[in-house]
């Protein structure tokens, strides 16, 4: 489904990704782990098309097409979804309007008919249950006054509504207590299908108890320095990252 080849990217003058190569097949869950500043969030942002990052080398092929040639909205329309580490607050735009705009934009791009507000509310009912959210949250401005846990649940709600083929979860576990973590993880698991794939970016092993990965990759200084199965995550939990990180990187960070 996704082939990343020797990907380089920078933010401003700073090189962040320095040659990432990764293959993700349909039905798989990949965990990207690594210390702070290793580039794991950047990888997620670059795949979603954040214009703040400049790709300076390599290629990304998604379902046979050149992902890097697409605008962020086109990537979303093709089924790419990024759950933000820090979801954005948008005063003045209701959650319901935002979700329906997104849902209809993606439907329109796929040649499907748009849905009206009442139909959409029906559709939302089951999705809200999935992340244990009250319908009242739909009438509030996007993420305004939401707690950390509510923001993350709102991200998974959007994912449930948009039903992506490739879901990128950027530190979705950060700032969550164990109850919120369970809700978020069970939402993600409920959305897993044989024809979609998930990339989980995380600093901690804890989330992987709930979203069990098929592969674990460790990023350091913009490169994958080790790959393995889920047992690698447990090893990292026990030993930390230091044994994998080269000393040159310590200077750079």
């Amino acid at each position, binding site marked *: 489904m996704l082939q990343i080849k020797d990907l380089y990217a920078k933010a401003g003058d700073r090189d962040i990704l320095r040659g990432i190569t990764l293959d993700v097949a349909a039905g798989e869950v990949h965990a990207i782990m690594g210390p702070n500043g290793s580039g794991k969030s950047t990888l997620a942002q670059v795949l979603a098309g954040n214009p703040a990052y400049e790709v300076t080398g390599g290629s990304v092929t998604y379902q046979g097409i050149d992902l890097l040639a697409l605008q962020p909205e086109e990537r979303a329309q093709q089924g790419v979804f990024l759950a933000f580490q820090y979801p954005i607050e948008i005063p003045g735009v209701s959650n319901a309007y935002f979700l329906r*705009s997104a849902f209809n934009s993606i439907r329109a791009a796929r040649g499907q008919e748009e849905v009206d507000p009442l139909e959409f509310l029906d559709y939302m009912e089951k999705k809200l249950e999935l992340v244990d959210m009250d319908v009242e949250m739909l009438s509030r401005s996007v993420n305004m006054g939401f707690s950390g846990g509510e923001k993350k649940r709102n991200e998974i709600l959007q994912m449930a509504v948009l039903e992506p083929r490739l879901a990128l979860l950027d530190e979705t576990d950060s700032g969550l207590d164990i109850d919120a973590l369970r809700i978020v993880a069970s939402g993600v698991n409920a959305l897993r299908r044989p024809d979609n794939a998930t990339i989980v970016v995380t600093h901690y092993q804890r989330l992987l108890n709930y979203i069990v990965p098929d592969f674990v990759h460790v990023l350091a200084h913009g490169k994958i320095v080790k790959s393995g199965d889920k047992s690698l995550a447990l090893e990292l939990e026990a030993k930390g990252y230091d044994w994998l990180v080269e000393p040159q990187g310590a200077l750079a960070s």
Partner: protein
Amino acid sequence: MTAPYLADFTTLSNNGARAEPDWLRTTRRQGIERFAALGFPTPRNEDWHFTSVSSIAEATFTPLRGASGQVAKSALEPFQFGQSDWPVLVFVNGKYDASLSTPASLATGIRAIDLSTAMRDEPSLIEPWLGKLSTSEDRTFSALNAAFMSDGAVIHIAPYIESPIPLHVIFVSDANAAKGVAHLRNLIVAGHHSKATVIESYVSLGDSGYFTNAVTEVQVEQGATLTHYKIQRESQRAFHVHTIDAQQSRDSHYVSFSFATGAALSRTNIYTNLAGEGCGATLNGLYMADDEQHVDHQTNIVHSQPNCFSREIYKGILSGSAHGVFNGKVYVHPIAQKTDGKQTNNNLLLSERARIDTKPQLEIFADDVRCTHGATVGRLDEMALFYMRSRGVSTDAATKLLTYAFAADVLETIEVEAVRSELERATLERFTGSSATP
């Protein structure tokens, strides 16, 4: 560049104005004398520092002589908020058009006639107020208006009358207004303990260049609440100068909203004097400009008596090479203790070349007051834009939605639902396909 106006005044004095009552002739003469003495303001004048009127001063405008007679009722529908049953007074190219107007549908206790009829047949409806609520002393355009005022709406709301239905005054210009000037003068007298809404719309049915020079005089009597919306959707080539002068008696509330999106150059002055205790003034507005448009708002809230409050929120959205100006003055007289004033001006710039000059001014001479003000200038939030795009929303739709969201809270202050939803729609559509470059 005052000479053509002085010549026009001589013509007016020798013709139509000859039959007018003495007090009106005096008002006109004083107006032209002040205009001749003041001349057009230059940027050296502090109140006009950011707005050059040379394009008005150097052009020659012919006084508009009357209705074109070509405006169909249906042509006004887009400006009527979907409310065909609201009473309307319609002025075409500066002249009252009885065939398009429906004063008969006004609620009992509300009287609305055109100024030219009032001057001729019922001067008692205007004489006690006209030219007295508004000053021309240091204001060129008001002085010019006093000299030439030809038509406009005269509205009287009787004491204790409460009308749930707004009265809509529409000034419409069409192709026949090209190179013409209309000096419009309106008078609104809200009787004590009355409650009513008056809407003034300045709209265009074409893209001709003309000059609207309007003055609205407002008296809000004791205990009355007057809601006064001004909607400026002039032609993109028009010049528009409008001064609203409100005088408030004890325990009155004046609620103003100014929506400005048209004209090549527009200047709206809103002055209110809280001349009795326990008054409130709410002055809100939204201005939007694009391309080479220039949009200027000046507000002056004078707290003359104790225990009054004022609330002001103005928002601006500027794109292309547009230039916005906001100058909000709050003056607190030495005896106006316990004044509670709050003023905010927020601006959103959608392009590199768009510009805003914002100048909040507090002049406080009492010691027991609570007054705050703040102004901001910002651009669209890049992260919010990316967030929306990452959910499949197009750049254009995301820009529109974020721009609308910026203005949403000030539009929400419009209490008349039909007006609010129409202006929300107009705001959402304002920058579609424009030169916005977030």
